[in-house]
């Protein structure tokens, strides 16, 4: 099962490499990863998506918790949550394609953020599967370049991950 694990960790050099090292050392997969400082500059928030059964995820979270720089973490997929990813994507936009791409962008509530005579650059946010669906709708042959931010997530309601 796919999981979104959200981690608060000390904003210190080396902390990120310990998290990543743990995954490669213990043979866990990281599907996506995003990390940036929070409103408290001593803390970073790291969100990663991974796959595994309950046992494996339990081991992953236990080992992450053991890392000295990890302050707190939550498996967002255990409860109601909001998941977002940002994608910037360059697609071919010539001839009849041009209008077709524009229509798809509208349907997916994306924005065209840059234009040339042959290329649209599109910005899209949403859950990862929505971004996948957009690529599917456009058709891979039309895609010139994709850059995705990796997933970030937050719990719904009043639950917060903070100190």
């Amino acid at each position, binding site marked *: 099962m796919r999981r979104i694990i959200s981690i608060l960790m000390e904003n210190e050099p080396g902390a990120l490499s310990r998290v990543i090292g743990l995954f490669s050392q213990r043979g866990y997969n990281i599907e996506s990863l995003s990390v940036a400082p929070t409103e408290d500059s001593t803390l970073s928030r790291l969100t990663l998506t991974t796959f595994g059964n309950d046992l494996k995820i339990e081991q992953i979270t236990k080992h992450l918790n053991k890392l*000295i720089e990890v302050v707190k973490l939550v498996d967002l997929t255990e409860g109601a949550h909001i998941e977002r990813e940002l994608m910037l994507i360059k697609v071919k936009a010539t001839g009849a394609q041009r209008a077709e791409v524009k229509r798809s962008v509208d349907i997916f509530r994306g924005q065209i953020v840059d234009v040339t005579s042959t290329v649209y650059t599109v910005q899209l946010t949403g859950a990862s599967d929505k971004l996948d669906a957009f690529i599917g709708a456009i058709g891979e042959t039309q895609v010139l370049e994709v850059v995705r931010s990796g997933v970030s997530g937050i719990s719904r309601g009043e639950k917060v991950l903070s100190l």
Partner: protein
Amino acid sequence: MEMLSGAEMVVRALQDEGVEYIFGYPGGSVLHIYDALFQQDSVSHILVRHEQAATHAADGYARATGKPGVVMVTSGPGATNAITGLATAFMDSIPMIVLSGQVRSDWIGDDAFQETDMIGVSRPVVKHSFMVRDAKDIPEIMKKAFYIATTGRPGPVLIDIPKDQTAPNVKNPYEYPKKVKMRSYAPVSRGHSGQIRKAVEELMKAKRPVIYAGGGVIQGEGSELLTKLAHRLNFPVTNTLMGLGCFPGTDPQNVGMLGMHGTYEANMTMHSSDVILAVGARLDDRVTNNVKKFCPGAKIIHIDIDPATISKNIMAHIPIVGPVHQVLEEMLSALDEHGGEPDQKALERWWEEIEGWRKVHGMRYETNENGPMKPQQVVQALYKATKGDAYVTSDVGQHQMFAAQYYQYDKPRRWINSGGLGTMGFGLPAAMGVQFAFPDATVACVTGEGSIQMNIQELSTCLQYGLPVKIININNQALGMVRQWQDMQYGGRHSQSYMESLPDFVALAEAYGHVGMKITKIEDLEGAMNEAFALKDRLVFMDIYVDPTEHVYPMQIADGSMRDMWLSKTERT
């Protein structure tokens, strides 16, 4: 406030931590620290002959005393030489501090002379590591390092120190912190009371219980309480290789070591049990054999300070996360509160069954009439000569298993070996560390002619510091453990497991200034042992020739359950 250079701060912090010994080897990037060491005498520096030996010596010191071992190495090759020792300590959860020099801060990343990314290289084999970025942080980093290494599940901590941060002309105020404050590190201090009571209920209902005690009992100073609990309940106790000595080896309730080379009765007891109380043990693959076939009828109560150990290999029915000392104490009072007694009738039957196993297939081996002596005889002679009261360190191989099986350890911290990593070359330097900790104690290093050659240069260190370690070289003229596997699984094809051109160990010992003895006949063994141990202030290297064809038994059959074992070359369960 006192103004100190970074180098002086490092040394002062060691003093403030009460460190007696630091094992190390100098080089360019740590010279400022060596100079500061020179100007004081409360911390003694022990000069080894190879940095790997420094780590194992510190490790041996830590295992024997419970206090953290401290190491200092220079950058680059000095630091990388310490990696095997870090990994050895990490696998066995041993508290250790390694101070590694680093090139100047402004050269880091430039492939400077003797630069290695030590934080990166060591990352998977340390509990934590620090890089000193500002000399002002040294007191706090040192305090945190000792705290992290010694609390929770212990482990090695590395501090990487760029040379400029120790410069003698840059002084900063020094005050050693009294307390550590870390929002992201809080080792568990108590087990869950509800879980402990649940465990007690389960123990009371058990008809075929067993206590499976590991290295964590020794680490957590829980031996006395565990012994009390076991005696109170009259349950059989089995120890892991790391747990030997946490319950007296000669106690009739002790069924011996379990696992791959465990006793027949220990493995049968485990397999047939209905409740297993696992204490400070990590259900390692050398113990469980095939996890799918592991103890099919047993409920597992698992006490461990590290939540990640629980249900990692085997699902625990009643997990208890906490320090063994506190949990056992609370378990004993929960027993009082409960007021009940275990099912005596069932226990009686259980003990009868166990005694039956003991009688049929208890530890034994065949001796050669007129032929070469057996390695087991050597360990038994050692036991006799030392009256069972020595500190025994070991290397890795068949000799290690024999030393575990045939020497009875009645006290914790007496049996010192590398279990998790299985590091050949551990034995001699570890013995040095033990001898430093207890100068008057009898320290024996049981080794093989393969392992001893991995850190033989330390004979020189032993001479320098007058360490009267007794080296028991069980010389089977082969990498015996490897050869045993080749006999059993590779049709006897001894690929590279034969030691050709062995040195004359007696001459070698003498060349290093020690006493050497060569023993080839069983009738000379006891006398030679007594002679060697009577030489209280000399290192004696006993080169003892044994049967090269001997195997270690019992041996679990791969992929089977715990009770599937070879009992000799021809009999199996």
